[in-house]
């Protein structure tokens, strides 16, 4: 504290020691301020007038002096303090210079009035906060029942169901049997075993290349579903026979008919 005395000799000798000390405290405690508005409010108190009659021009100058001194002290001010300083410098110029008729936007007086309003409002809220905290408080000045009795909750549950629920439940049960686990309808299935059986009896005649589609069983070509099943199983059976070395398969090109012929047995 004392070392700041020399750094900040008061420019007004009439100022009391306490005023000078508080002015220095401003600098030292800059972190203690809750933003530029708070600082402005504190500075405004040195004017010792009602906030309604405060000189905004003077206040702006005080703030700018503060920022200057902080700079000289190499105290880093947060950006919002500098933004406020810039704005106040702008406000100051507006208040001092005669208004430019071409200039739109708020006049210096309007801006100053708003700042005064903000300061007054902040001060009012400070006073309110103080009055609020000065009230009798629960648990400090007045007290609640020390032995509260628990209210026993008797809970009753009403279950609801309507006739529709009832009937739907019943239908659900009674129709459950109609939905057996899914089983393949085997009427339209031509199994590979059947195809093998059929082809074994026929391949003896296939000395020359034969389109395997000619091995499809009779009556299976009509419906697409049956034709697919028979084709698939006949194809699978052909592969099986080729694997067993009973037949040879060939296909002249992609998607061309698959042809089959009996494989000559060495020991035959």
């Amino acid at each position, binding site marked *: 504290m004392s070392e700041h005395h020399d750094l900040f000799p008061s420019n007004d000798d009439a100022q009391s020691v306490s005023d000078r000390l508080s002015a220095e405290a401003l600098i030292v405690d800059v972190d203690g301020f809750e933003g530029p508005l708070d600082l402005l409010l504190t500075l405004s108190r040195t004017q010792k007038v009602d906030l309604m009659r405060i000189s905004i021009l003077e206040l702006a100058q005080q703030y700018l002096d503060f920022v200057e001194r902080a700079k000289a002290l190499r105290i880093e001010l947060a950006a919002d303090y500098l933004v406020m300083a810039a704005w106040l410098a702008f406000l100051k110029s507006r208040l001092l210079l005669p208004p430019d008729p071409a200039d739109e936007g708020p006049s210096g007086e309007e801006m100053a009035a708003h700042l005064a309003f903000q300061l007054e409002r902040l001060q009012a809220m400070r006073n309110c906060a103080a009055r609020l905290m000065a009230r009798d408080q629960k648990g400090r000045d007045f007290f609640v029942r020390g032995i509260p009795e628990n*209210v026993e909750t008797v809970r009753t549950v009403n*279950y609801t169901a309507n006739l529709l629920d009832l*009937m739907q439940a019943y239908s659900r049960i009674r129709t459950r049997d109609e939905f057996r686990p899914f089983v393949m309808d085997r009427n339209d299935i031509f199994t590979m075993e059947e195809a093998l059986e059929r082809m074994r009896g026929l391949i003896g005649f296939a000395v020359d290349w034969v389109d395997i589609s000619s091995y499809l069983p009779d009556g299976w070509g009509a419906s697409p579903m049956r034709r697919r099943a028979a084709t698939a199983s006949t194809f699978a059976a052909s592969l099986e026979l080729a694997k067993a070395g009973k037949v040879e398969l060939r296909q002249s090109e992609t998607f061309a008919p698959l042809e089959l012929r009996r494989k000559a047995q060495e020991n035959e």
Partner: protein
Amino acid sequence: MSEPEVNATDTLFEAPPMGEQERMVEAILFASADPVSVKELNDRMPHGCDAAEALVHLQKRYEGRGVHVMRVGEAWAFRTAGDLGFLMQKETVETRKLSRAAIETLAIIAYHQPVTRAEIEEIRGVTVSRGTIDLLIEMDWIRFGRRRMTPGRPVTFVVTQNFLDHFGLESARDLPGLKELRSAGLLESRPPPVEPTPTDEDEDQTELFED
């Protein structure tokens, strides 16, 4: 005790009037988390107070009120008047939908009454929990019917008049048959989900109720 100088200054003054002392006892008894003894009252009240006398006045004042000043061992406390104990209960009524297990059981009883538990289980394909039956009996929707004259003489269940009233039926025979249900579009056209739902298990009381 933490501020002995308060007591010291108090001795300079007269004890507060009895009306004030009564107020003090009233406030202390009200706010204390435990019953308070006369000694503790005197300790907490300004010097010269007579808590015992103040208690007599206070007790009289609360005679016939909604709360009484009661002696609890060596200490004193406010207590709710005995005849108002019923106010310390709060009744809440909750409405819930009957669980799938319960509604199915109820439906089977309604359509097949009199029906035994074994028959219900056969139709539903799962065991029926005791809780389900109990709940339906408690709701006065089903009751015991005659025992079946078969080995083991199993009890049967039938629906009650209350059931008929609730569902707006003259008799259980008025329930629509399967064919009518189907024509009314009430039959589900899709098979039930393959995955067994928890309610199908019917093992647990808690599963009685749908969320």
